[in-house]
C-alpha cells in the first residue's frame, strides 16, 4: 500500500475501514492490543504507522505503547511484506541436518537475504528459531504450509509452486 500522507480525510477514512472492522470485534481494552495488532496485520499485510496511531487512539493508550508492543514481537512487521512468507527453520535439529545450506539455496534462488522481500512482493524470506517439526529436519514453512526434508536441490520447485501464475489458463475455466 502506498504513501498516504497529505491525503484528505475521506480517503483516510476509507483506508482505515478494514481496521474499523477489526476494532469492532474487540472491547476497547488494552488487553486486546496483541490480537488487534494480529488481525490488523492480517488485513493490511503489515502494520502501517497510521493504523497503529488509530489503534492507540481507539484503545486510549499512547502511540509509544503500541509501537513498543509492535516492535517487541517478531510476528509484527512495520514494512510491506511478500505475498508468500517463507520461514526457514534454524532450530537445533535443522542446524545439524543442513538447514544452513537450505537457507543459502533459497537466498540464491530469490536473490534476497534473510529478512528481505523480493521487489515483486512475491516472497519474503525469514528465519525462525524452531518450527517444531524436528523429526523432518530440515524444515521450511511457506505461509501456513510446512515442508519437511527439504534440500538445496528441491527448493526451487517448491518455491515455484507458490509463484503467481503468469498466464491464467483459459481452458481451465
Amino acid at each position, binding site marked *: 500500500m502506498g504513501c498516504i500522507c497529505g491525503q484528505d480525510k475521506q480517503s483516510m477514512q476509507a483506508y482505515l475501514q478494514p481496521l474499523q472492522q477489526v476494532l469492532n470485534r474487540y472491547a476497547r*481494552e*488494552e*488487553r*486486546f*492490543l*496483541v*490480537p488487534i*495488532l*494480529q488481525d490488523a496485520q492480517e488485513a493490511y499485510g503489515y502494520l502501517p504507522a497510521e493504523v497503529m496511531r488509530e489503534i492507540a487512539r481507539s484503545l486510549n493508550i499512547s502511540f509509544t*505503547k503500541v509501537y*513498543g*508492543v509492535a516492535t*517487541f*514481537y*517478531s*510476528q*509484527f512487521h512495520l514494512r510491506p511484506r511478500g505475498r508468500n512468507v517463507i*520461514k526457514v527453520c*534454524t*532450530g*537445533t*535439529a535443522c*542446524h*545439524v*541436518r543442513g538447514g544452513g545450506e537450505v537457507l543459502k539455496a533459497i537466498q540464491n534462488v530469490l536473490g534476497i537475504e534473510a529478512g528481505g522481500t523480493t521487489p515483486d512482493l512475491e516472497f519474503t524470506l525469514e528465519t*525462525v*528459531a*524452531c*518450527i*517444531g*517439526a*524436528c*523429526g*523432518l*529436519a530440515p*524444515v521450511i*514453512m511457506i505461509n*501456513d*504450509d*510446512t*515442508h*519437511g*526434508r527439504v534440500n538445496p536441490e528441491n527448493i526451487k520447485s517448491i518455491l515455484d509452486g507458490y509463484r503467481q501464475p503468469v498466464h491464467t489458463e483459459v481452458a481451465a475455466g
Partner: protein
Amino acid sequence: MRSAKELNELRAALAQQLAERKRAKPRIIIGMGTCGIAAGAREILKAVLREVENRRLDVEVCQTGCIGMCQYEPLLDVQLPGGPRVTYGSVAVKDVPRIIASHVMGGRVVEELAVAQMADGEPLVEGVPTYDELDFFGRQLRIALANCGRIDPESITEYIACGGYAACAKALTEMTPEEVISEVKKAGLRGRGGAGFPTGLKWELTSRTPSDKKYIVCNADEGDPGAFMDRSLLEGDPHRVIEGMIIGAYAIGADEGYIYVRAEYPLAIKRLEIALKQAREQGLLGENLFGSGFSFDLHIKKGAGAFVCGEETALMASIEGRRGMPRPKPPFPSVSGLWGKPTNINNVETFANVAEIIDRGAEWFAGIGTEGSKGTKVFALTGKIAHTGLVEVPMGMSLREVIYDIGGGLPAGAQLKAVQIGGPSGGCIPAELLDLPIDYESLREVGAMMGSGGMVVMDQNTCMVDVARFFLKFTQNESCGKCTPCREGTKRMLEILDRICSGDGKDGDLELLEELACHIRDTSLCQLGGSAPNPVLSTLQYFRDEYEAHIRDKRCPANVCAGTSAPYQINAAVCIGCGLCVRVCPAGAVSGERRQPHHIDAGSCLVCGACAAKCPVHAIAQGA
C-alpha cells in the same frame, strides 16, 4: 453435563456407536499432525479420497494426530471390520491404490509397507509386528501421549468413548479441591515445563491465596529449538490438556483460564479451538459443571513470536497486552499474577498427566519413575538418530536405552559424540555419560537440564563450539533487553565465540567466557539469562580440547567452522583419486591425476570445507 451419571451414559452410548462403526465399515486413518502434513499427508488423503470415489467404496476415512514415528511419515492405517489396525509407513501417493486394492478390498495386508499393527481387541494378522513388539514402542510408557496417533483429535466423542472427562467428573463430584491437591501432591507430579517445580504444591499455594478471582494458565509457548512435545500433544489430544486444566481450576478455585499458544503452531490452535467449542457444547466448560456448582471457561491466546514469553511473568504480561518482559519474583504468580490476581501456570504436558492421576490414583503414578522424579517424560528425539520421533519413557531410564534401544542408535557411520538436552537452557552430555538416568536431579548434576524435553543427538561431524555458539546466538537474539547481564553479557560471550569459530581466538578467551558465564548466570533477572550460559559451560566442561584446537591450532576438529584458518590437507594414504574435491573446490586449489592421491595448494585454500564434506572416504581434514 449435569452429572457424572450423564457422562457415563454418554460414554457407554458413544463407545457402542464407535464399535458399531468399526464393525460396519473398513476405516482408513491418516496421520495428520504437522509432521505428517509436512511429509505429504494431505496428498495421501487426496489420493485416498480419489480412490474411494473412483471405486465407489463404502469406507470411513478419518484422521489422527502424531503417533511419534516421524521417520515413517506419512502414515496411513487400515482397519477392516473385525481386524487389527495396521499402520503403513513412508506411504507414497503411488502406494495408495495398491493398499486399497489389496488390503481394503481384498483383505490382504501389503506386508512390505506395513510397519506395525494395533490389536484393538481383534485377532492379529501374520507377518506384521504389533506396536509393542517394536523396540520404538515396546519400551515406552505412554501416559500423556496415550491417545496421540490413536484417536481423532477433532472428535470429542472418541475422547469420551475411551474414558475422557471421567477424571474431571470424579474430581468435581466426589472430591474436594483439597483432596484433588493432596492427590496430585502424593503422586509427586513435577512441572514438565523445565524447572520441575512440584505441581501439587504450586496448586496449594494458589488455592490458599484469598481472592475474589483466580486464573489458571497453560503454557504452550514451546519455543525451545528442538522441542515439539507440546505441539504434538495439543494437535493429537487437545481434550486431555483441557481436562487437566478443568481439574486444576477446580483445585485452586479459578473460574477462568487461558491457553497461551505459539502463533507458529497454527494446527494446534485450530484443534484447540475445535476442542473448546465441543467441550462447551457438551457442557464440559461453562456454568455449574456436573451439577457441582463449579463454573469454568477457557480462552486461547496466540503468542506473537518471542521466546521469552515462555517465562511465566513475561507470558502474563503478554496476555495483558503488553510487551512480554519478565519481572522480578516474588511476588510469585500464585500470589499476584494476571491483572494482579492469583494465577497458576503449568506446562501442557504437566496438565496432560493430571487426569490419569485422578483416574488411577496417586499411588499408581508414584510407582513409576525414580525417588525424586515420578511418572514419565516425553522427549523429542532428533538429530543424528535412526528413529527420530516423539517418545514417552519412565523417568530414570538411561540415555543409552532411549538412544540405542528406542531410537535405534545412530545412522551407519555416525558415532555418538554428545546429546543435547534441554535446549538453550540445557547442556551437552558427552558419550561417556550415556548411562546417566534421566531425571531432574541427575541431569542438573552433569550441567544439563530436563528443560522441556528436546533431545538432539550429535555425532563426530558436529562441532561443539559451533553448537554452543548456535544456542548463545539464539538466547542473545531472544533476550528481551530488560536486564543488563543478559542483554550485554550474552552479546559479549557471543562475540568471543564468533571469534573462536572464525579462527581468531586468543589465549585467555576461555577463562573470560567462564567468568562472564558465571556472572550472567548469577545476576540475570529471569532464567532466560540465568540459563543462557549452560550450553557454553557444559561444552567447556566436556569438550574443552575442541575449544583449544580452535584457538591454538586454528583447527576445527569436526570440520564445521569454515573460518578456522588452517588449510585443508589430503591424506594420501586414504585418497582414492575420485576427483570430487576438484569439482567442488571454489578456489581451484585441488589438483591431481585421476585415481592418484590429490593435493591441496595451501596458499589458495579458502578453508571453506566443501572438499572435506564431499570426500567419500573422509581423506580430507584441516591440517594442524
